[in-house]
């Protein structure tokens, strides 16, 4: 079915694009645009469920709700991965901050006590 190709392709494209160009202004803008489109689609789907079903029919899915479900899975996976990567990035900054503090408070051995 066509839907399978569409879902797989969109997952791959999203992953590649966002993982490759993370952090750049272009990606940030891309995320916002994608989000806007996603919201617009949500509104459209809510107002005209029958139209969504028609679109679903085009790509080989039985019902519009199923199409939405499939799309949600892709978006959710992508969002989870994105949050994971962001967390790792923050963790690294946090580690560097803590390291700087640790190094500035380092204690060399006091010779009186050593041996």
């Amino acid at each position, binding site marked *: 079915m066509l839907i399978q190709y569409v879902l797989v392709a969109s997952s791959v494209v999203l992953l590649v694009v966002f993982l490759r160009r993370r952090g750049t202004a272009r990606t940030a803008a891309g995320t916002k645009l994608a989000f806007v489109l996603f919201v617009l689609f949500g509104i459209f789907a809510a107002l005209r469920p029958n139209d969504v079903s028609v679109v679903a029919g085009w790509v080989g899915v039985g019902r519009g709700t199923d199409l939405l479900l499939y799309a949600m899975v892709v978006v959710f996976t992508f969002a989870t991965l994105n949050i994971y990567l962001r967390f790792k990035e923050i963790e690294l900054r946090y580690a560097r901050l803590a390291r700087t503090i*640790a190094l500035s408070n380092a204690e060399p051995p006091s010779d009186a006590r*050593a041996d």
Partner: protein
Amino acid sequence: MSDWPDVWLIVPVFNEAPVIGDVVRNARKTFDNVVCVDDGSRDNSADEIRFAGAHLVRHPVNLGQGAAIQTGVEYARAQPGGRYFVTFDADGQHQIDDVLAMLERVRSEDVDIVVGTRFHGDTSHIPWFKRLILKTVVLLSPRTRRLGLTDAHNGLRVFNRTVAEQLNITLNGMSHASEIVEMIDRRNWRVVEEPVTILYTDYSMAKGQSVINGVNIVFETMLKSRAGH
């Protein structure tokens, strides 16, 4: 002054109060320069370290072993006169004699880093499950095999100033071993292995990383190249 004024021992420490004092005192019989990175221990590891005469760097919060090693290396490389650097476990499972043999190699041979391996000769002292896991990790990593390494997760390493200057561990937890292998490959450090003996005491076994953590390591390593820089 000892025979090794240009060597720095880097010991990441997390809640090792029962043993760290002896480990440091034993190491200081041979090496003057020992820096312990207390990774936010909740016991009195820090006092034990101070009393044993090591340099003490304290993380204000617990960050993980990878972060502690990076901190120790950054401290040591900023001190004057350091030419060789050793990562050494705090739980007493590494042998000073092994360190000396590795130092000899990094001094006399054309290598940048010497990594300890448990898989030369008799391996019967390694618990069989641990052996299986460590072997699997190596098998799953084409990079490790290409570099001719047999034990990527050995904590005992000796390296020169080039490596110390370039070392940049970004994975805070236990995945740093894989990250170091990756750095060896990418930065073209010349690497050799040296057979070492790991003393598996009840203490070190209880403290050692669990097998389950292997899953975390694989996952973090796969995603690492995306997150860190």
